[in-house]
């Protein structure tokens, strides 16, 4: 999948637009997206403290209530408070997002660095294996893994991690390759440093910029894919619910009670858009060689 690596704006004009010469923290897009992301992270971290009702508490006298002062986001068909469920869902969503990206890095970092450092046969074996993984549609590969592993949060993280690790590997490898034949690597080899030392202390630091962009973008995609599995009922199991499962639960009554679908959609959209915008902004800065 080539989607997700294209620049949003700015690179087509030839001259550097004024807003990009400002320091990063004064770029309105960066600040806006960063703020949205921080709000999501804080809501998730503080979730148990701020939710007004237990997320699983049913009330059959108050089913499908529209948003009100009592229930800001309304209630679902079992009378559960939607605000509480959406905030708790954020915790789950971020958990599998970060978990999957950690999984991607766990595989992709060593694989990409080793591939770039040794080259030759090692490179061929690693990259062709990744090619085979990438020759599956992402959703299908994840489905197959989840069918074997069974639906739960841990397996969801593993499935999304495996699906996306070839892309992380490619990014890390490409970043490491740009410095692989530099003088300082040769110097380290001449000093007699071990391969492990060179990979970790010389190659890895040069790849950090690309890795940070990859983390932002990959986090967005991991959340989308994970939420899609949950929507299909193959990930997190009820009564726990991430935003994907909340949208799925809203399906049968969303025409009568649209708030049950709108709020989880609003949350997932703002989170993923902010991640993509952050990734794009940092990426543009890196290409100019100026991370302020």
């Amino acid at each position, binding site marked *: *999948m*080539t*989607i*997700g690596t*294209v620049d*949003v*704006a700015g*690179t*087509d*004009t*030839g001259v550097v637009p004024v807003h990009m010469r400002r320091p990063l923290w004064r770029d309105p897009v960066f600040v806006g997206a960063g703020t949205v992301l921080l709000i999501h992270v804080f809501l998730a971290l503080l979730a148990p403290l701020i939710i007004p009702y237990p997320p699983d508490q049913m009330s059959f006298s108050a089913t499908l209530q529209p948003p009100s002062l009592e229930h800001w986001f309304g209630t679902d068909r079992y009378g559960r408070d939607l605000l509480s469920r959406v905030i708790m869902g954020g915790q789950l969503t971020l958990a599998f997002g970060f978990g999957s990206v950690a999984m991607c890095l766990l595989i992709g970092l060593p694989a990409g660095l080793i591939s770039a450092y040794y080259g030759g046969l090692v490179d061929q074996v690693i990259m062709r294996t990744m*090619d*085979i993984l990438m*020759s*599956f*549609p*992402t*959703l*299908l590969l994840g*489905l*197959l*893994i989840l*069918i*074997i592993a*069974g639906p739960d949060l841990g397996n969801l993280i593993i499935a999304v991690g495996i699906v996306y690790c070839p892309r992380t590997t490619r990014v890390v490898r490409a970043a490491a390759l740009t410095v692989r034949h530099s003088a300082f690597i040769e110097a380290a080899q001449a000093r007699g440093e071990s391969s492990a030392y060179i990979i970790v202390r010389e190659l890895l630091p040069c790849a950090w910029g690309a890795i940070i962009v990859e983390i932002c973008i990959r986090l*967005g995609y991991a959340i*989308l*894919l994970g*939420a*899609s599995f949950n*929507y*299909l009922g*193959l990930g997190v199991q009820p009564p726990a619910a991430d935003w*994907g499962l909340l*949208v*799925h639960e*809203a*399906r049968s009554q*969303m*025409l009568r009670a*649209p708030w049950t*679908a*709108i709020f989880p*959609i609003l949350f*997932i*959209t703002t989170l*993923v*858009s902010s*991640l*993509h*915008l952050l990734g*794009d902004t940092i990426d543009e800065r890196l290409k100019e060689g100026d991370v302020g």
Partner: protein
Amino acid sequence: MLRYLASRILYTFAILAAVSFLVFAVTELLPGNVATMILGTDATPEEVANLERLLGLDRPSWERYATWVSGVATGDFGDSLRMQRPIAPILASRLANSLLLTGVALIFVILGGLVLGTVTALNHGTRLDRTFSAVAVIGTSLPEFVTGTVLVLLFGGGLMRILPPSGYEGFSHGIWDGISHLILPALTLATIMAAYVGRIMRTTVIDVLKSEYVRAARLKGLPEWRVILRHVLPNALVPAVTVLCMNLGWMFGGIVVVEEIFVFPGIGRMMLFGIAERDWPVIQACAMVIAAAYVLGNLIGDVLALLLDPRLREAAT
């Protein structure tokens, strides 16, 4: 060029072989004994052993893999455990539905992506352009289940009821009935790609507008619409169409979720049915066909891209 084509086709077959192996391995690893799953836990050991022999489960895996692959190669996918019928005919009609859906989505991508990209590029730097760029970023960050749900809320009965939110039954109830059921799912499938293609189209049109030959055409005194139609668009189309071609297979991958949202009788929902019912021949067949469509779509995309762009052709040889 020919050598590249040959190696590309060979590569596709190698990938298909690897895919078939993985798909088969997955169903081998399915938890639980298949025979017990069909008969229920209170079946006697003899009954289980009988059924296993009937299904050929007592043979070694490699032998069953060989039988399965040769079957698949000749279009025989075995029988569904749940439906007790051959899979191939059902699969064929479901696949036809899915391909039709993807085809309509492709039309939306071309119309939406190319037109929006061109219009915004011609209005480069205006509010319209900035709005579209922002919407395009959001468009590429929406999963299908969100786009689909929003579309249903807007047009499928929430805000207004213009289009049916589910229940495609082919064209037996008239052409409009069929088409109207295809529009929402196809739009959902098309959104991400349209936003993506639109962004690329916008960038290339802006580049072409700055080129020497466009300036020459303008200096020659050609009317602006002629400059755009005859000089800008033909040159700007190539990158966008190339990217579109390369993502043909990718579009087919999104079909599982879209079909689930709109209860569309395609191959994606058939696969989900297989998963829910633990009907492993159905899972195998659907996974294999979806993966094959994806791989073949990418092959077609690469070849079309080569034909369109002579520069790629030179790089390939």
